[in-house]
């Protein structure tokens, strides 16, 4: 395994194909679970006709979107309009290259040596995730503007304002984790939680709360889905997108939900670590592979996303802005100061 072609091309390519397939499938089936779950919460059935209990529904949807009529409106700015889906899907996918799904493994002895199940570990992963995922806003605002449709323009502007407003408290919430972990690498942050014998959600529950609510707002999900509010904006920034171009906006939204859930898992819930990693009598939990722990935690957050959608009514736009700037921003700043002071006073549990 020292051949550079194997190390730098073959192994990453295999991982990329697996990750790409997994994200696409996960996003497709997330939409199925969302529809079934919201159906259950609203006491109706949801899609249950295609295949057993409707499990083939996402496949049918994908085929339908693939063969749909593909329109470019005459008044749209053509080049910018067509680059919208590309600009939103590329960041949503590339972020997954630094998400640590688990520790290095040799797949129960199938591989000659242990390789990490994540694509790469860079020493600025947190900055990478924040920077690259913020790039997706270009897809939304340029797509909304280039459609030359009033609904799309308003949706794009609202989305931009919402994303940048919630980016600030989200950044402060993550700084609180960095204070405790002392590293920007996601793998090191998980290892730091093992050494600290505690998931960071316990000392940093305020930061976690702010992070996750901001994450819901960043992905334009209920109750913060004003950019696409059906009742007033008719799907907002993607009103004029049809067929596969719409499919990419859709895919990016669900992929971003998985990113936010994965980051919440890594930063606050110990990534691939089992619950209470320092309690010896819970050692029997180690029979569950670390990757399964990671995926289970991510699934729990995704469930919360759908649960929010089934539970909360949509907020008004001025309420949304007030919540971000007047509540979350001061609270996250105060939280940062308290955690910083506590670490100096007590050494932060290390």
């Amino acid at each position, binding site marked *: 395994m020292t051949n550079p072609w194997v190390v730098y091309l073959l192994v990453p390519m295999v991982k*990329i194909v697996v990750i790409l397939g997994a994200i696409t499938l996960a996003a497709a089936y997330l939409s199925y679970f969302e529809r079934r779950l919201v159906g259950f919460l609203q006491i109706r059935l949801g899609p249950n006709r295609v295949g057993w209990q409707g499990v083939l529904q996402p496949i049918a949807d994908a085929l339908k979107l693939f063969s749909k009529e593909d329109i470019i409106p005459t008044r749209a700015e053509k080049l910018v309009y067509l680059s919208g889906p590309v600009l939103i899907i*590329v960041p949503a996918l590339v972020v997954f290259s630094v998400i640590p799904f688990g520790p290095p493994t040799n797949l129960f002895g199938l591989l000659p040596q242990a390789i990490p199940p994540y694509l790469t570990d860079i020493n600025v992963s947190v900055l990478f995730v924040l920077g690259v995922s913020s790039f997706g806003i270009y897809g939304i605002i340029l797509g909304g503007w280039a459609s030359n449709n009033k609904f799309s323009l308003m949706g794009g502007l609202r989305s931009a*304002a919402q994303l940048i407003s919630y980016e600030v408290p989200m950044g402060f919430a993550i700084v609180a984790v960095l204070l405790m972990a002392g590293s920007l690498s996601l793998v090191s942050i998980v290892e730091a939680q093992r050494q600290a014998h505690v998931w960071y959600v316990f000392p940093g529950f305020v930061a976690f709360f702010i992070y996750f609510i901001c994450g819901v707002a960043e992905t334009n999900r209920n109750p913060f889905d004003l950019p696409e509010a059906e009742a007033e904006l008719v799907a907002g920034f993607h009103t004029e997108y049809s067929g596969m171009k719409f499919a990419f906006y859709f895919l990016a939204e669900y992929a971003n939900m998985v990113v936010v859930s994965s980051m919440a898992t890594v930063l606050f819930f110990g990534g691939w670590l089992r619950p209470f990693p320092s309690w010896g009598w819970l050692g029997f939990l180690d029979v569950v592979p670390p990757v399964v722990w990671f995926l289970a935690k991510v699934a729990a957050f995704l469930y919360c996303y759908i649960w929010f959608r089934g539970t909360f009514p949509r907020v008004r736009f001025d309420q949304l802005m007030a919540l971000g700037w007047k509540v979350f921003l001061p609270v996250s700043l105060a939280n940062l100061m308290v955690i910083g002071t506590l670490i100096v006073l007590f050494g932060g549990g290390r």
Partner: protein
Amino acid sequence: MTEYIPVFIFTVVALLFPFLAVGMAWIVRAGKRDAVKLEPYECGIEATTFAHDNRFSIRYYLIAVLFVVFDVETVFLYPWAVMYRKLALFGLIEMFLFLGILIVGYIYAWKRKALQWA
């Protein structure tokens, strides 16, 4: 820098993905297009003005300016947070000074109703 090579490969693959998928769908796409269908959607009535002729609220710009200020502050806090264990008390005092200045600006913006939507 070798750990960035997979990121680069992934970016190339991720760029190819939408082009291939939209291109293939373009070949098999259904339907007939006509002039009316290709107009921007406007609840079924004929549009008299278009989005690019209209103006929108100045507040969106104001939010963008505020964001630049606060996000730059966040970016300064990242390296500080990573080195916090070494800086210890000095780091804490520095942070209180830094965030103190930020909070004064924040209160000013709040008092001038920059955070007030409508």
